[in-house]
């Protein structure tokens, strides 16, 4: 209310332009009507002012002359009633004969009110004369027109003033809005002039840097000084770039706050141009991204440590969106598959392409089963072919997520490169087997040495005695009693030699182990599982041709296992120099009459010459470069100890050999 009252009393200033116009109107009016005084009065309570006075002869009113109100002036009545007033002769009118103008001899008055467009009174426009002026009365209409002109001008002035006021208010509001926007920004905003002075610096600078915006305005270089030294070159390069070729891009650097704390800042700036394209400097927005950086860093570290862990463990993980068929692999999976990240358009189909062709069906089946049945977990060992042709053995595990309708929508899993593990297992198995073999051989060696020594004593005695007897015979000094004695000694020593051989044979005989009844096929399957890795690594196909139902044998399983492994290893070595398609071993069981089962291990290797074949079960006979040649000899002892027999035949088509053994059925 107060504001409005102030505004209501405040009127636009009359400009020189209007004053000159009004002067011409008043002069024209006085001359036309033929009166000494034509006036425009302006009220300025408690006084009234002569605003414009006509430049006519005998005009007693001076411009700027002021008179108190409430003195009975003609104009007061006009203003009060807001109607025109004509006083033809004040002297004849008791109401007017004492008014102040009469004192000036002005007895004739014709006046019109002047009103602002808002209804407030401005003053009057009037003519005065010393006598009744009939002409003036005649020109009353003309005066009315003049009044209309002046009021029109007042409207123009008011309108202009109102407009001006409006613009000013709008400007004020815009200014305020702009301040609100800038001062309440969360980021640190500023504008640098081309001369490097600061045109604007948001107060939020203090929140981020600890320095007030004024400190930046006073020292624009502070912007650079707070950057930590190792990051300043980032800023320098950026600034250099912006000077040369201003464009919008972001950089990141660290600052040291006034309190010493380090903060990460993301800095973006943009060249600003004026309306005529002139360079106005750079507009800059700095954001405190410390929290984001910390999260990023934590994430990066965690990802890095996960990647490291995966690399060390040879364990990758994958994530399959079944609906969109999007497959995401960790780096380790790419490494295991021998692919460059991104080289692989990761889809299930593309994954299958990396799986060894022979294992694809098994993998597909395992995946389908786990997708179809929530109770079936995905766990499978299979081979992977790398682009360079090399093979890896992996173990995959996975878990499927089903939606509410029971449809598989998502699957996650791990892939573990177990190639080395498998190799190590095999190595350890081989080493163990070799050790066993060496133990057996070395103990046999010792037995042999001891046997030789023990036999040498009676043999030496026999030779000596026989030699002595011959000599006695030749020398004719023969005493029959002595000859008998000598012969008896020879017999005794010979018996002793026989005893030695018998005791050594008893020592050689292995301690009997508990034999158990077992289906022969189980033995072959057990061997197959032991031998599987070896076969995979050597790329050998193993075909099982087992009679059903399996005959049961009563055997020392360890020993029979040893025989089977021995035969399989020999077969594997025989075929391993062949092309992959010929690397095949067939394991077969067949019942034979009467009450026996035959096991055949057939390879498709180069075969063995008849001469060598005849000696193949002899101890220390070998066709291999490495090896002691005891494997088949021991195998034969084992099979024979089980009441069976073992033999070998070249295959009819001269492709490889087949080892057979037969064991009695339990």
């Amino acid at each position: 209310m107060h504001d409005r009252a102030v505004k209501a009393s405040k009127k636009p200033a009359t400009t020189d332009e209007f004053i000159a116009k009004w002067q011409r109107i008043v002069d024209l009016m006085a001359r036309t009507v033929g009166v000494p005084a034509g006036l425009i009065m302006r009220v300025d309570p408690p006084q009234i002012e002569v605003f414009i006075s006509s430049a006519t002869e005998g005009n007693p009113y001076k411009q700027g002359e002021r008179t108190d109100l409430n003195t009975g002036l003609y104009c007061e009545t006009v203003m009060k009633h807001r109607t025109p007033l004509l006083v033809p002769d004040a002297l004849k009118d008791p109401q007017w004969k004492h008014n102040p103008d009469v004192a000036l001899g002005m007895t004739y008055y014709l006046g019109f009110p002047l009103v602002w467009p808002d209804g407030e009174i401005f003053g009057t426009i009037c003519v005065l004369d010393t006598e009744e002026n009939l002409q003036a009365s005649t020109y009353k209409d003309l005066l009315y027109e003049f009044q209309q002109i002046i009021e029109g001008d007042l409207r123009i002035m008011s309108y202009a003033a109102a407009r001006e006021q409006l613009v000013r208010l709008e400007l004020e509001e815009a200014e305020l809005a702009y301040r609100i926007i800038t001062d309440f920004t969360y980021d640190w905003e500023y504008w640098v002039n081309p001369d490097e002075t600061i045109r604007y610096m948001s107060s939020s600078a203090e929140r981020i840097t600890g320095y007030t915006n004024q400190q930046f305005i006073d020292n624009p270089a502070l912007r650079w000084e707070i950057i930590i030294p190792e990051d300043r070159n980032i800023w320098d390069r950026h600034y250099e770039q912006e000077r040369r070729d201003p464009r919008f891009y972001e950089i990141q650097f660290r600052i040291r706050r006034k309190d010493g704390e380090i903060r990460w800042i993301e800095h973006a700036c943009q060249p600003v141009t004026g309306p005529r394209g002139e360079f106005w400097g750079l507009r800059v927005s700095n954001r405190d991204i410390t929290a984001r950086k910390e999260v990023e860093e934590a994430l990066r570290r965690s990802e890095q440590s996960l990647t490291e862990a995966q690399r060390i463990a040879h364990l990758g993980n994958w994530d399959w969106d079944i609906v969109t068929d999007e497959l995401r692999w960790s780096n380790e999976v790419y490494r295991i598959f021998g692919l460059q990240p991104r080289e692989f358009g990761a889809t299930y189909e593309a994954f299958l392409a990396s799986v060894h062709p022979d294992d694809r069906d098994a993998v597909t089946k395992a995946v389908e089963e786990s997708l179809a049945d929530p109770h079936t977990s995905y766990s499978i060992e299979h081979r992977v072919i790398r682009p360079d042709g090399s093979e890896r053995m992996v173990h995959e595990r996975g878990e499927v997520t089903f939606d509410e309708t029971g449809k598989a929508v998502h699957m996650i899993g791990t892939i573990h490169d177990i190639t080395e593990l498998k190799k190590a297992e095999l190595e350890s198995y081989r080493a163990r087997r070799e050790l066993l073999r060496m133990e057996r051989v070395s103990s046999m060696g010792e037995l042999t040495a001891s046997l030789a020594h023990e036999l040498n004593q009676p043999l030496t005695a026999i030779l000596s005695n026989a030699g002595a007897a011959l000599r006695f015979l030749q020398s004719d000094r023969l005493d029959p009693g002595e000859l008998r004695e000598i012969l008896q000694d020879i017999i005794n020593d010979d018996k002793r030699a026989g005893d030695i051989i018998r005791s050594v044979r008893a020592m050689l005989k292995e301690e009997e182990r508990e034999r158990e009844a077992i289906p022969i096929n189980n033995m072959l399957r057990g061997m197959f599982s032991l031998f599987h890795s070896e076969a995979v690594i050597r790329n050998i196909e193993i075909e099982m041709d087992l009679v059903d139902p399996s005959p049961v044998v009563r055997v020392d399983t360890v020993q029979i296992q040893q025989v089977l492994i021995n035969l399989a290893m020999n077969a594997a070595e025989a075929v391993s120099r062949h092309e992959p398609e010929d690397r095949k071993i067939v394991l077969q069981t067949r019942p034979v009459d009467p009450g026996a089962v035959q096991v055949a291990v057939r390879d498709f290797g180069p075969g063995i010459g008849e001469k060598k074949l005849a000696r193949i079960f002899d101890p220390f006979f070998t066709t291999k470069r490495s090896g002691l040649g005891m494997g088949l000899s021991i195998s034969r002892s084992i099979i024979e100890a089980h009441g069976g027999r073992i033999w070998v035949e070249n295959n009819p088509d001269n492709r490889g050999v087949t080892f057979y053994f037969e064991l009695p059925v339990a």
Partner: protein
Amino acid sequence: MKPAIFIIDDDASVRKGLSRLLRSAGFAVETFATAEQFLEREHYEGIGCLVLDVRMPGISGIDLQDELSKADYSMPIVFITGHGNIPMSVQAMKKGAVDFLAKPFDDEELLQAVSAAIKKDTEGRAEHAAVLDIRGRLELLTPREYEILRYVITGMLNKQIAYELGISEKTVKVHRGRIMEKLDVGSVADLVRLAEKVGITSPTDN
């Protein structure tokens, strides 16, 4: 007197057989089951040899060889073994064994080895007697004569020896005559051979 053969072997049958064989060849034989039993026996002075088994309980054949050597008990050895090896036989031969026979061996092999051992012992004994004789004669020499002897065997002339020792040539000549006389040799060549047998060294060797 027959040469004596000492058989040491822990196997009774072997001892008995070998003993018969060697007796049939005309040797006197004594048998022992261990090396210790042999060492307990009275020191044998006559011509003979040892037939020694390498591997025995207690003192082994190789150890006995060492013991006898240390005790200066000189007797040739024929080793017999059931499981000898080359390094062991080389070692035994280096230490003076006459032969190293692997059981079982031919009767001829053993008899040849034993005969060789007896021959070696006979010769060794003669040699030993000769050395003892020379040593006895050398003891007759005065220290000066012994010193001059060491120069003479290098082939130096009297004049040179006199110069070396700072005495007159005549004195050297007198000493030399006495040396030849005491040692009972007729020439410098005999003197050198004699010195070699007992291992007298020339002064430059010191």
